[in-house]
């Protein structure tokens, strides 16, 4: 291969990643008893695409694993082998191995050769185990070439392989060695005829009972695709060549009779509509919808041979897998045959068809582009500025006579509307559907429930709810933990459930929706529910500050305490009491919160509320002196004006405020930040009661200004961390305001207290 492939590696990695993900999803939704043919085809296509492209790019380890995987899948989808539960497991594991190998190629650690080998063995065993059953079954083995008659004896004897290798002598030798060693896995291999010239085919004999299509798959990697001929051992070479002329190449095994005769222009490709190929009245424009994905046909209308592409677009799914499967083999001959005068077109068409094949399996690939996040952020920044500029203009315009400058006013109103629309669309670029996260959970639930011997069904809803990409990345771990927790502690074992009169299969629901500017994600189960008494008892045992009058909500929040676990025994999945506190911390760090509602014996529901984006925060603006500060609204409990009697002094310094029987430390912001010209008398200002990590404190400020949604900007990107400040934001007038780091302020107050006392 003379083209430098490395430039396409990134695309390959991304595509393969997508194929693996879609394969996993499909495997999980597969009904083992009655697998849907379309789903099986889709899985097969994914595997095949991975094999094809990894072979093209020279990632042989990936290709090897997918190759075996593909073989087994192929036989399953053809009904030769019955799908079994253990096969799904093997497929999923193979998917994991492939992911590992892929990551290794991307420079992320070492590829695990052993596990790759192990999974290959496992898949081979599955194939072999099932093979005798397949032979005995009523379904006849799929004939892998056109003439059914020799099919009867080829399996016993073996196959003759003819193919043309490309490249110089050295690379041919190398490819040949590879082929032979690969083929040895299927039967005894003998080189029957060496090629004299590059155009002359090589001839190999494979003894045993190989599957012609499997061998073809191997050969496709090295040999010129259109040159591969596979015939039963001992069949006359003329027959082999005759077979070769047949465009179908035995790929239409399901219907052997569809093998098209040589003179058929359609090459068996358009078998359902063989006559359409010569219908000139078919408008070439009908090719338009198919063009993008089947660019393979592009040269045809130009050559005035209107082969009917609509035949394909009519049933894209049906021909889809078939196209992908057969493209490498048949792409060249039809074009060459249809355009005998333009052999130059051939490589182009081949390339085109490859592109088409990869495009076809990632639908929508051409409707999206990959853009760096920094570019999007830059865009968001600029639009933010535009909004501020627009607001400034509007403010100035408000002072001029609206009658005299009517057109200016109208223009400004238009500008405002357009700016708002622009801002909304730009913000939506960062939004992604939560299905990106949800899609991994079927696998988690499956694996964990299997490990725990429980039967669990996962119900998803609201997968299309969109949230910020940054949140998507960070929400997945906490959610996984919540789900594992529900699986382990929530859902009971089937026996226990039956005893309680519940259906043996437990249900976990995962739902996402928008509610008043927040994203709400619910993880619910119909399991045992949280035992209030047990949690309270455990909390007392651990010496936590609890009492029996606490509300359920408060009691349930205790499970988020570090090291808190009521599990009677530690399992592999959970129960060590680590995790829930991390979940809560992660979610709080994202500006969200978790609520729990639960009923003993009925189930538990964890509700995670998150802001729409990481970059936007609901804030309360407060004034101190001439400065404006933003307090994240999530921390604010209430605000009140201090009355003289409420302030309690410690060692002569007024440092505590008594609010409803509680003594709270007072943080005076003007002192902490050394703001000049601020109100110093507690009676004149406002106390804002804040709570963070279960600790309350009162923040003393001059006045409350308002409530805003603010865009969080980092202070550290150009400056450094400032104690008590978590970031900055740009206010409506273009000025910068600091966002307070409430946790830091509250702990400052606690540390300052002994010093003041």
């Amino acid at each position: 291969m003379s083209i430098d492939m490395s430039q396409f590696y990134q695309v390959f990695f991304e595509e393969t990643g997508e194929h693996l993900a879609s394969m996993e999803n499909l495997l999980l939704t597969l009904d083992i008893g009655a697998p849907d043919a379309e789903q099986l085809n889709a899985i097969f296509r994914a595997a095949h695409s991975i094999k094809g492209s990894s072979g093209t790019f020279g990632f042989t380890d990936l290709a090897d694993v997918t190759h075996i995987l593909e073989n087994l899948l192929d036989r399953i989808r053809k009904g030769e082998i019955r799908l079994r539960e253990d096969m799904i497991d093997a497929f999923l594991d193979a998917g994991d191995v492939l992911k590992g190998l892929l990551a290794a190629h991307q420079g992320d650690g070492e590829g695990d050769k052993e596990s790759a080998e192990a999974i290959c063995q496992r898949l081979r065993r599955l194939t072999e185990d099932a093979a005798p059953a397949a032979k005995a079954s009523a379904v006849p083995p799929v004939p892998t070439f056109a003439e059914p008659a020799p099919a009867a004896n080829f399996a016993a004897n073996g196959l003759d392989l003819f193919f043309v290798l490309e490249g110089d002598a050295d690379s041919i030798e190398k490819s040949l060695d590879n082929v032979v060693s690969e083929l040895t896995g299927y039967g005894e291999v003998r080189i029957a005829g060496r090629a004299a010239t590059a155009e002359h085919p090589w001839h190999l004999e494979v003894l045993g009972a190989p599957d012609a299509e499997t061998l073809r798959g191997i050969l496709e990697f090295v040999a010129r695709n259109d040159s591969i001929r596979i015939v039963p051992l001992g069949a006359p070479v003329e027959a082999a060549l005759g077979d070769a002329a047949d465009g179908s190449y035995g790929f239409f095994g399901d219907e052997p009779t569809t093998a098209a005769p040589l003179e058929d222009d359609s090459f068996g490709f358009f078998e359902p509509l063989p006559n359409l190929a010569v219908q000139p009245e078919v408008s070439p424009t009908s090719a338009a919808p198919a063009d993008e994905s089947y660019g393979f046909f592009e040269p045809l209308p130009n050559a005035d041979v209107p082969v009917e592409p609509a035949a394909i677009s009519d049933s894209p799914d049906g021909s889809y897998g078939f196209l992908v499967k057969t493209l490498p083999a048949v792409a060249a001959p039809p074009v060459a045959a249809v355009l005998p005068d333009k052999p130059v077109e051939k490589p182009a068409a081949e390339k085109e068809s490859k592109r088409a094949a990869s495009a076809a399996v990632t639908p929508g690939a051409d409707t999206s582009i990959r853009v760096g996040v920094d570019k999007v952020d830059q865009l968001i920044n600029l639009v933010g500025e535009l909004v501020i500029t627009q607001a400034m203009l509007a403010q100035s315009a408000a002072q001029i006579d609206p009658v005299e400058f009517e057109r200016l006013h109208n223009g400004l109103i238009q500008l405002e509307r357009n700016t708002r629309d622009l801002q909304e669309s730009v913000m939506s670029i960062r939004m992604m559907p939560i299905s990106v996260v949800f899609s991994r959970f079927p696998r988690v639930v499956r694996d964990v429930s299997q490990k725990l011997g429980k039967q669990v069904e996962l119900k998803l809803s609201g997968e299309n709810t969109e949230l910020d990409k940054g949140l998507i990345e960070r929400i997945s771990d906490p959610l996984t933990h919540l789900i594992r927790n529900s699986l382990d502690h929530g859902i009971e074992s089937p026996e226990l459930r039956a005893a309680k009169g519940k259906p043996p299969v437990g249900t976990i629901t995962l739902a996402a929706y928008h509610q008043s500017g927040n994203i709400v994600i619910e993880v619910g189960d119909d399991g045992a529910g949280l035992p209030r008494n047990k949690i309270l008892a455990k909390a007392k045992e651990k010496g936590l500050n609890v009492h029996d009058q606490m509300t359920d909500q408060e009691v349930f929040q205790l499970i988020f305490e570090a090291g808190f676990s009521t599990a009677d025994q530690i399992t592999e999945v959970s129960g060590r009491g680590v995790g829930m506190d991390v979940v809560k911390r992660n979610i709080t760090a994202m500006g969200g919160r978790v609520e729990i509602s639960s009923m003993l014996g009925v189930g538990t529901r964890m509700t995670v509320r998150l802001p729409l984006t990481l970059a936007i925060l609901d804030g309360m603006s407060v004034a101190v002196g001439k400065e404006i500060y933003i307090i994240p609204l999530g921390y604010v409990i209430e605000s009140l004006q201090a009355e003289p009697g409420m302030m309690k002094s410690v060692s002569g310094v007024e440092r505590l405020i008594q609010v409803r029987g509680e003594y709270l430390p007072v943080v005076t912001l003007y002192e902490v930040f050394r703001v000049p010209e601020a109100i110093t008398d507690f009676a004149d200002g406002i106390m804002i009661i804040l709570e963070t990590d279960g600790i309350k404190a009162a923040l003393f400020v001059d006045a409350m200004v308002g409530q805003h949604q603010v865009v969080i900007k980092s202070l550290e990107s150009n400056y450094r961390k400032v104690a008590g400040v978590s970031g900055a934001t740009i206010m409506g007038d273009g000025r910068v305001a600091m966002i307070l780091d409430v946790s830091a302020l509250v702990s400052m107050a606690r540390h300052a207290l002994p010093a003041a006392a």
Partner: protein
Amino acid sequence: MIQEFAQQKNPQMNAADEGGFAQEYLTFTLGPEEYAIDILKVQEIRGYEQPTTIANAPAFIKGVINLRGIIVPIVDMRIKFGVGKAEYTPFTVVIILSLGNRVVGIVVDGVSDVTSLRADQVRPAPEFAATVDTRYINGLGTLGDRMLIVVDIEKLMLSGEMALVDEVA
């Protein structure tokens, strides 16, 4: 008020000159001294606007401003080095520097012009008592009867002394 220098001007490659390559510098005054900084480090020059103060920051860090959506700290070099009068008039200018991936603004007494200095016009600086520590001085440039102190502005601004970056623990 915003003038973009950096993007438009490249150092002139007057290799034909005997003194070797000429490089362009932006010169500004700080009290009686005249300083020159690499023009490529300058992003733009703008008028002074009241920044938002940062709690507990040193006095020479005036605060941060919003530069088209980016939060940029503003350092008053006059306060930092104790020269000139730190007063803010409509003519006070801020040089916005682009240092690596950081953006910082400095307030100076005045921006003079853009000059080009050939390598032979810049002499190594002797140990002397300039306002700026000699560690950050690349040399002294001579331009007629003017003496320009050529400062490595990036090294200076990102040094611990300017308190703009987190100290590496």
